């Protein structure tokens, strides 16, 4: 027996092996654990890296094999587009159980990490792919046509100006006017039908039509407010509130001043 073999049988061997095992596991975890946006990313763009991220961040609710549990639906078939949408908008992972996962900022992952997770889920089963720039940057879209499609398919939930709307039991369709509602995320949302939103696949709303819708939403995000403050673009309700509070208030102030005796 050589010296190494003798050391292997040292009584402290077990303790040392365990310690080393912990170091390795802890080290790998540290390397691959969620970082703040500013931290340097070390993960490689591989399905494997994505798998590890998935296990660390998603498997608790979505199952070790993404098959789904009572806390989260199956992710088999949601495709890279689904993961890219949910994770890059900060909706996933959900911090706590709720009727709906809200958009959050800042997100915990770098672009490469998101891509890795998307790649892993996409590898599980065929699903919608991340759309190309051509359709998502809105440049080839016709905002007028997009408006027509938007009003038939989207305005009933998201409101005529994209200010968002209520669904049942506390769910809601979020507002679309923030600048981080990018063309890519709009496309992916239509494609994958996140949460309560239905699926608007490319056979229902073609890629060109989606580009039209993106151009229209772009207009909603950048349009000037033609007549003054737009009070949130929620229709007659804020207008009524304004007239009762500021309208009547200012008129009554003037009436009171009118009736007061001068100094």
């Amino acid at each position, binding site marked *: 027996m050589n010296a190494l073999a003798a050391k292997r049988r040292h009584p402290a061997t077990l303790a040392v092996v365990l310690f080393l095992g912990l170091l390795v596991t802890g080290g790998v975890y540290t390397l691959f654990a969620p970082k703040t946006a500013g931290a340097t990313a070390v993960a490689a763009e591989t399905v494997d890296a994505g798998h590890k991220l998935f296990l660390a961040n998603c498997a608790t609710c979505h199952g070790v094999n993404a098959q789904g549990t009572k806390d989260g639906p199956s992710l088999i078939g949601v495709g890279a587009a689904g993961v890219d949408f949910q994770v890059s908008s900060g909706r996933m992972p959900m911090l706590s159980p709720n009727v709906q996962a809200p958009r959050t900022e800042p997100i915990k992952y770098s672009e490469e990490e998101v891509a890795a997770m998307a790649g892993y889920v996409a590898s599980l089963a065929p699903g919608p792919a991340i759309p190309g720039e051509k359709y998502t940057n809105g440049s080839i879209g016709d905002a007028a046509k997009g408006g027509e499609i938007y009003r038939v398919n989207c305005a*009933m939930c998201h409101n005529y100006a994209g200010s968002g*709307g209520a669904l049942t039991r506390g769910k809601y369709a979020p507002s679309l006017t923030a600048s981080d509602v990018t063309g890519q995320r709009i496309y992916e949302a239509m494609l994958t039908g996140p949460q*309560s939103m*239905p699926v*608007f696949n490319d056979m229902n709303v073609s890629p060109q039509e989606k580009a039209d819708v993106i151009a229209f939403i772009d207009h909603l995000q950048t349009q000037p407010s033609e007549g*003054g403050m737009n009070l949130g673009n929620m229709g007659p309700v804020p207008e009524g509130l304004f007239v009762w509070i500021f309208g009547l208030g200012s008129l009554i102030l003037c009436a009171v001043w009118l009736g007061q005796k*001068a100094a």
Partner: protein
Amino acid sequence: MNDNGHLVPAPDAAVAPVSGDDRFQDPGLPPHVHRLADTDPRAAKRAERQVVALFALSAIATILFLVFYFAIDPESTVFVPFMGAVKAMNLALGVTSAACLFFIGIGAVHWAKTLMPDAEVAEERHELRSSDADRAKAVGLLQDGAQSAQLDRRPMLKVAAGGALSLFALPFVVQIVGSLGKKQPKGVIDELKSTIWDIPKTGPNANKAIRLVRDPVLTPIKAEEVTIGSVFHVLPETIKESEHVLEDKGKAAVLMMRLNPTDLKVQKAKDWGYEGIVAYSKICTHVGCPVGLYEQVTHHLLCPCHQSTFDITNDCEVIFGPAKRPLPQLKITVDDEGYLVAPQGFTEAVGPSFWSRS
């Protein structure tokens, strides 16, 4: 009302006794307090200057309005804090005209408050009731007039005049009411119960199932394009030849969704669908708004007007809100090219309830 024309309690009013000496007496108008401008000529001059300045501000605002009207490009926008980018023309014209009006008002009121007399004046009231003499005169004139017109002696005059007068408005009413609507009464109910999904029995399209097309682009839909979780806003292909597009859309708009067939709990709903694809009228059975909101996970349809909620898994039964009847289902199948078609129209009237609906 006593002789002085002053008001006293009527005998049948339930009023607490006013035993004259045990109530406080009215102390009369408070003593007049002079304003600065009344006593101090410098204050009066100052007030005058202020009023003049306010009117001058209004005039300046008017001039600015005229300048902006011609000088500003109607397309230009300007960024204002708290308001964002707004149309410059609206802001400029609005602010200047508002100032022009407002300062006239403030100037006039300030003038009244500081320089016009502010001693309170009391004007006496008089009872509204005419004196008994005046009343008697009026009644007398009326009675004399009726008598001299021989109304009391010749009652037929009254009856005939009354009859003619009570009828004279009828032609106007009948003319207006008769010309406002277009259809015979029976036609109205029949038309309310029909939609352009009904398969015609005669003509070039007789007995042909109607293809479903997408709203608003009007292209036909293949069954495999409808994936689980999808919602399609659908119209009949015949809308393309319609001469009354909006009127037909108002009854023919349909919503089509694909669910897992095991989620559909009612057999008839499954049979009238195609492999989990089901089509329902989009016109709410409450007051007719489009029921556009499809919640993909719960399979509920929500109407945004009054929040009626329909459960697709249960044949669109109402589960919340003021609607009563479920949305009517449209039976669909596929044709030999794989496009979705409706082999029959709706079997009940779509949209809001009406008296003769059944």
